[in-house]
């Protein structure tokens, strides 16, 4: 079986359409972030890992509704309550307020016990993070993303050429921006695993981009490669790697799909973010990374001019 054998799609020629698609996605995402700033006071729905506070997962033995739970925890004053996977399971996300890490869970357990009775529920999970740790985690997550950016760019610049590194980072930033936009739009809770998911997207997107760039590098260094029209060169490289791109992304998405369906509620968000990221990463390796390479080359040259100049200078000094 062969998919996209001898494909000859005009990807690069259609790059402006891709820019429009990407631009729209990014703008919608930024709109979501701005909307969040006004409605929940923060551009993303940060979980307790980052804001500090307590996440309490409670499982009722009898049918119960979020409304009952909300009433028991203070009605309109109640912290956000979400149903978690199963019918009678809920998570309560409470800011620390006047409580400390040590008292908050006890307070909620007591409130629940007063309202529903001691034997009506089981607390199956609690995560309580103090404000100091929360701030630290936030800083570390930002640093992790920043450093992985810098180091991978440096690596690609070293293995390829600087413009490849730049183009790869642009594609990756594009993916992260769109992913963050979706997260903001759907108010996905940003927890520690979500950061891991975003960094995985960084890795995956780079992986895809590198495979295409690897082919570009090869075709460029082949006999007569430097004399080829850049648009043709890029198109040829993308089309040559298309079967691999489709097969790998397809397999990864199939596995992630399985994880999404049977993996359970705990990692559902995590998996959804990965699926989104893999899809965008695949798209960007074709429609963003290579066009970015072209644009950089168009504006700043491909280095051949300066190389010529250097050669001439070297000859002159000799």
């Amino acid at each position, binding site marked *: *079986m*062969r*998919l996209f054998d001898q494909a000859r799609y005009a990807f690069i020629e259609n790059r402006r359409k891709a820019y429009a698609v990407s631009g729209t996605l990014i703008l919608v995402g930024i709109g979501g972030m701005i909307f969040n700033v006004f409605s929940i006071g923060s551009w993303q729905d940060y979980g307790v890992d980052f804001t500090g506070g307590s996440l309490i*997962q409670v499982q009722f033995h009898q049918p119960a509704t979020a409304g009952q739970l909300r009433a028991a925890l203070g009605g309109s004053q109640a912290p956000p309550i979400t149903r978690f996977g199963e019918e009678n399971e809920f998570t309560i996300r409470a800011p620390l307020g006047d409580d*400390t*890490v*040590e008292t908050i869970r006890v307070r909620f357990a007591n409130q629940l016990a007063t309202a529903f009775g001691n034997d009506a529920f*089981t*607390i*199956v*999970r*609690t*995560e*309580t993070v*103090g404000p*100091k*740790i929360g701030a630290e*985690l936030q800083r*570390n*997550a930002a*640093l*992790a993303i920043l*450093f*992985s950016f810098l*180091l*991978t760019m440096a*690596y*690609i610049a070293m*293995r390829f050429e600087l413009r490849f590194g730049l183009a790869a980072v642009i594609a990756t930033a594009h993916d992260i921006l769109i992913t963050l936009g979706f997260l903001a739009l759907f108010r996905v809770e940003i927890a*520690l*695993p979500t950061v*891991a*998911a975003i*960094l*995985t997207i960084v*890795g*995956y997107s*780079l*992986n895809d981009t*590198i*495979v295409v760039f*690897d082919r570009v*590098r*090869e075709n460029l260094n082949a006999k007569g490669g430097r004399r080829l029209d850049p648009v043709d060169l890029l198109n040829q490289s993308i089309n*040559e790697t298309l079967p*691999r791109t489709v*097969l*790998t992304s397809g*397999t*990864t998405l*199939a*596995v992630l799909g*399985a*994880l999404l369906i*049977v*993996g*359970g509620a705990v*990692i559902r968000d995590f*998996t959804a973010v*990965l699926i989104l990221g893999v899809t965008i990463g695949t798209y960007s390796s074709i429609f963003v990374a290579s066009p970015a390479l072209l644009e950089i080359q168009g504006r700043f040259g491909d280095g051949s001019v300066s190389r010529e100049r250097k050669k001439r200078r070297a000859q002159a000094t000799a």
Partner: protein
Amino acid sequence: MFTSLRGRIILIIAMVGVSIGYLVNRGIKLGLDLQGGMHLVLEVYDPDGTMTAEARADAIDRSERILRTRIDQFGVEEPSVQKVGGDRIIVELPGIGLNDESRAKDLIQQSAFLEFKLVLPVTELQSALGRIDRQIVAALGVEELRLLGRDEEGSNQDIQNLIFGGQSRDSTQADSIQADSTGVEEEPEEEHQSVNLSPFTTLLLSGDIEGAYLVATEDVEVAERFLALSEVQRALPRNISLHWEADPIGLGQRTYRRLFVTEEDAFVTGEMLEDATAQRDPQFNQPQVAFQFNRAGGRRFSNFTTQHIGDYLAIVLDDEIVSAPVVQDRIGASGVINMGNAEMLEAADLALVLRAGALPARLEIMEERTVGPSLGQDSIDRGRIAGLVGMVLVILIMTLYYRVAGILAVMALGVYLMLVLGGLSAFGATLTLPGMAGLILSVGMAVDANVLIFERIREELILGRATRTAVDEGFAHALSAIVDANITTLITALILFQFGTGPVKGFAVTLSIGIVASFFSALYVTRTFFLVYLSGKKASDPISI
């Protein structure tokens, strides 16, 4: 030696064998999110930031040792106490559910500072009560006291009167107490305004024993607030301290707590303990903790008890009195703490913390994560099913698309999986929930490497190369893409490891091991299987790819 076909096969079999060996003998450590348990991050309590970095580091060092001793005896399997970054301790207790949570936290946070002090008759404090009351009025103001409901006049009264006389408190003895004239820093105006207010004294009932007042349970909070005032602490007579008894007592319809008057200095402390064990009092069958002093402590204890036969002795644990027996006789190097109606488990825990020693500072919980065992099991089950479904999908796609070559790739993936699991086991890495996702992702990377190679081989075949040349060229051409892709992902994983905590770190470790294994699997194992597949063929025979 590992480049010949036989050498390659031997190496692969050996590595799989070692992996299986590790898996069988050591298994894979599951993270607390998977097996259930409790994860605590502790720091030295220092809200004002007055401790020097050195003092904090020292306190953390000593706390870590003491916590380790306490937790080792706590009875959970494979607990972990880890110092992180010089000022933090991470405690992990697998299997501790939300039921044992508070017991575990007590065990970790209790300072367990044990002191033995002489109980003094309350008359030692009586002379200072007026001064204390005036200091409270001065510090809080009449208005605040009114809000607290403590703007009354009067003195302390006898519990016997209260219970048997049935009088209300402010009706008696309104003017008896102002005998004290030694107060130095009194201000006359203050004196005029609130001359007769005695917010503290009126809380105190002279009690059933001469060394302690009684305070109604509902008044304890207010009394504690008064006593916490620094003005009040200064107004206490020299070498006197006040301690609450830990457990309330019931008298008549109401419950009270004893407020003991003791000498400030302990004559012996828990530092001189050598051993402590929980046992049952042979007479009343109540739990108690028997302790044993070391030689110096024993000498002090025996000297003290010789001098104080008939006096009360306060056993003070973390500022509260756990027991206050009368010294009946000279006691040598050992004694008991009676635990009253407590559970045997509490006695056992007390003995444990006493044995392990007192914490040098209060530890504050900065982060707490607890997962019940059933939730963890559910995650494992679901992860396993997801893994199986994913595996079947990969096998289907690869064999349908690449036929025999696909089967070779699937076999190589099997080897890869063994190596990753064996690697996790060998490095003692912890498999967390995000870690399982990382594992699945690295499977994706491993598949990708194979796809890259196979696509290249197909291209070479289309170009008309002979089978064997095409395979060699395919591997050679795919190499650079595989190397670069794996290294960049590895960079990300290592950064995650550096900045991540807990579950994210688990993800980074799994991903790193997965990438290295996938690299080896694609370039070495798949190649070897290809060599086996090609070994019976002529250079021009077709292959199924």
